């Protein structure tokens, strides 16, 4: 509902001319300590990382403090095979793929366990299937008209054409976009969708047939000639999809019709009786990718 709320807010601002926002200094209490587990594993042939940190005070401008003494293990329950992740730096625990197969396999079930100070935090995930990419294409940005995001410089926008599996199961995707191998990593670049429709289909028997062009519009990121646009579609679980939706709703939650701020849900299980709670998200992804060199 964000676009509707934004529009309402925008209309109201127009009406009043005077509605305004300013950055203010306020004092917030220090929250109690949490363990933050950021575990997004995929089947790409790169080193897989799980990051474990403390939570940070809200206005802190530094990186969160890493937790270095954890024992991190990922178990493939389907194969009954465990992989251990070793601490490298900055809170990152890494599993290096050296001549070995990827550890993430579609339709396999996984369990993550993180042991810290004698307490084991766990989470389960099933790796979902991904979509099939047809192509990535670039279009010249229209410089004549108005519209949001218009510009006078000629530049390109990229579109993704992909086909979603059609059956009675809803699929959730996270579409990551790179320009010359640099990920667009801002919070505004987070692009998650359901069956490519951009909205939840409640009746699970309805599955849209395809990514409807240009539903997988890759944002307002601009490209110039000779740039390389690379797109990856990561399959995510329904929980992970809602994790992103909730996170995005919380990080810019202003205006007249802002929602009541809420803590995001987590799929990390803290054992009963543990003094410190763990939060975060664990997801296993199947990735498909494609690239386009803009000419």
């Amino acid at each position, binding site marked *: *509902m964000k676009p509707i*709320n934004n529009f309402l807010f925008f209309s109201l601002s127009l009406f009043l001319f005077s509605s305004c926002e300013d950055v203010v200094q306020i004092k917030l209490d220090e929250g109690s300590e*949490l363990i933050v587990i950021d575990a997004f594993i995929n089947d790409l042939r790169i080193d897989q990382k799980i990051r474990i940190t403390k939570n940070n005070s809200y206005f802190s*401008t530094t990186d969160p403090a890493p937790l270095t003494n954890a024992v991190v293990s990922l178990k493939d329950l389907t194969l009954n095979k465990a992989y251990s992740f070793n601490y490298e730096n900055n809170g990152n625990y890494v599993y290096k793929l050296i001549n070995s197969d990827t550890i993430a396999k579609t339709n396999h079930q996984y369990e993550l366990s993180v042991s810290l100070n004698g307490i084991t935090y766990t989470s389960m995930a099933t790796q979902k299937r991904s979509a099939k990419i047809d192509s990535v294409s670039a279009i010249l940005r229209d410089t004549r008209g108005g519209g949001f995001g218009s510009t006078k410089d000629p530049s390109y926008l990229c579109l993704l054409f992909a086909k979603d599996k059609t059956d009675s199961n809803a699929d959730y995707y996270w579409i990551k976009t790179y320009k010359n191998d640099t990920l667009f990593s801002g919070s505004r670049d987070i692009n998650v969708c359901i069956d490519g429709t951009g909205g939840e289909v409640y009746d699970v028997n309805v599955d849209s047939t395809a990514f409807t062009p240009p539903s997988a519009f890759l944002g307002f990121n601009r490209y110039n000639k000779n740039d390389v646009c690379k797109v990856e579609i990561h399959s995510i679980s329904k929980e992970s999809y809602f994790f992103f939706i909730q996170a995005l709703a919380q*990080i810019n939650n*202003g*205006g*007249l019709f802002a929602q009541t701020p*809420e803590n995001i849900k987590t799929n990390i299980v803290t054992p009963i009786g543990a003094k410190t709670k763990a939060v975060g998200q664990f997801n296993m992804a199947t990735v498909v990718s494609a690239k386009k060199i803009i000419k």
Partner: protein
Amino acid sequence: MRATLIFLFLIYFTHSFAQEENRISVEKYTLTGYIKDEKNGETLTGAMVSKYGSNIGVSANEYGFYSLTLPKGEHIISVSIIGYKTFTFSVILDQNINKIFELKEEGKNLDEIIITGEAEDKNVSSIEMSTAKLDIKQINKIPAFLGEIDVIRAIQLLPGVTTVGEGASGFNVRGGNVDQNLILLDEAPVYNSSHLFGFFSVFNPDAVKDVKLIKGGIPAQYGGRASSILDVRMKEGNNKKLAVTGGIGTVFSRISIEAPIIKEKASFIIAMRRSYLDALVKPFLKDSNPLKNTQFYFYDLTAKFNYRINEKNTIFASGYLGRDVFAASVFNFNYGNTTATARWNHIFNKKLFMNATAFYSNYDYLIQFGSTNGPNFKWRSNIINYSLKTDFIYYLNTRNIIRFGAQSLLYNFKPYDAISTFENANVNFVAERRYGTESSIFVGIEQKIFEKLTFEYGLRLSIYNYIGKGTAYYFRDTIANTTLPLQNSKNYEFGQTIQSYLNPEPRFSANYLLNKSSSIKISYNRMAQYIQLISNTAASTPLDVYTIASNNLKPLTADQGSLGYFKNFKNNMFESSVECYYKYLKNQLDYIDNADLFINPTVENQLVQGLGRAYGTEFYLKKSKGKIQGWISYTLSKTERLVRGISNDNWFYSRYDRTHCLNTSLNYDIAKRWNVSANFVFLTGVPGTFPNSKLQIQNINIPYNTDGIRNNYRITPYHRLDIGATYSFKKNDTRKYQQTLVFSVYNVYNRRNAFSIYFRTKDGEPLQTEAVRFSVVGSFIPAVTYNFNF
């Protein structure tokens, strides 16, 4: 216990009737009729008709009807109403007499006395407590936002009434949510009382006669909402001559025409408003601006017709139609209310008066994105009410007035009906219509126990049925604050009852007169509410959907007790009161964290019901005579909620809790043609949920509140000064053309009051987070309005 109480009442009641009969063995006759304004024939409600020099009297009801029974003989009768010359006359009662009193307005501009047609000491002597009545003359003198006076904004200056902030729809009464106010326009409920989100209300002041807000001690004839009744009565229309009233303002223009159809028998009023902000903005926008073709306006039309068939029968028909439209090339959003009311007043005999009402009310909205040919999304929702009700007033004798009646109401609503079109393929998300019926019967007795003590007691019995046609969903219980899993669902035929609720709603008020100028009042009421608003946003939006009580959602009930001391000074020049209240709410709607409230057929598993409590003290001082008039009110209050699974199962502040509320409104007739006015308000900032830490996951800095406490901080206090000045032009001697110019400045000292404080990640710096104050009104707002009437 309850049975014993009722039994005792009955004994007392019969005893009191018997006493009355014994004491007066003499012959008695009744004086009945209507009380009207001599100038335009409008009925005057609440006027006091009494035997001179005694405290035997009766006040005219909401239709201006009175009935006073006195022993045979000569009596001096006085009819008194503030703002009108007291009418005194002698009558020899040797038969029943029907008499229409026409009262003259007192004074001219300068010493004009405001406040509605009430006897001067009514606040002390009447049984009503926690009730405020404003008439349009009084509302007219309050400095208005953008120069346009408004009923609901005026009400927000009264003690016990707050809002979550500027621009928020609706209002909160004594810690009640916005959906707990029964807003009636000529007896039909209005579901969204706001234009432009919340800056103006749907009530066109030119068509409004008076407004009554009942916050406590709610009489048995009202029911259906937990916290308050806002009873807006429309003018009947001048039945003596043609009258035109209008105004041209900064935001909108309005005009109303009223005239007799048959002189003194039938008349009508028709009033219209339309805003033109979009037209004013257009020339300032560049061609390339995507808002160039924006439509942005509201309009409303209010009309009423009345016909006095004969002495015993009067019929009324009234209606309202209003709409807010926001549209651009790829976007269309509009919403509005429609209401229609038909009423019949019938006098069976000198002691029995009846009002029968049939009404229809519809609130709907449409939202549409995308182009007609390309991908688009369209979404509608509506709520419709049909109702029939009758109210009888039986003037048993000078000590007992009995009201009784019944109402039947049908709720018919569509939570959503959405169509999304992509490449000629439609995906429909259509929710089933949902139905509920609410029937109630009530009896209420206003009884003078002895000279100084008056009781009003009654019982309302409401029966609610959640009915088919439709699917009822049944959920399994699970961990608090998570989505309840669906167990099964069942289809029901049309009219088949899915779930029933019965709620006895006792009401009681008492007034003990300490002396001529002071009294103590006490009241208790229970209210049941079968419909609630689903909203998890800071301010309720026009898109919010109502939901009715069902097999999953129990009806909301409220128990409220109030105690008050009322005192007038200096020959009723000053009125003052102190009231304490305590309200306890059950089954108030709340939401699980991260609830999915839109386009969700099983939305009920996203909702939770909890408890609420609100208590406070309201101080009120009003001066209603002389050159300087106005009031000052201060409320100290607390409003909390308790919901399983939310805020660690502890009581938390509600979103509209404001500890201190100070409202002052003054106006001064400074010179012959000038009236100046000012408002000052100070309100404690509303609570908000602030994070105390952040989590970094996938490069997103997510705010997190490790204590899990909702509404753990408060935003900065709200305060504001508004000033206004009205210049009345010299009246044309030959024609009765009257003109005024109203100047106003809202938020004089340019304060940026926070509506909310929210938290965000700095643009382009993903590591850095900041707090942002959002103000709806960020500067002072001057305005000029020109008004006329003839």
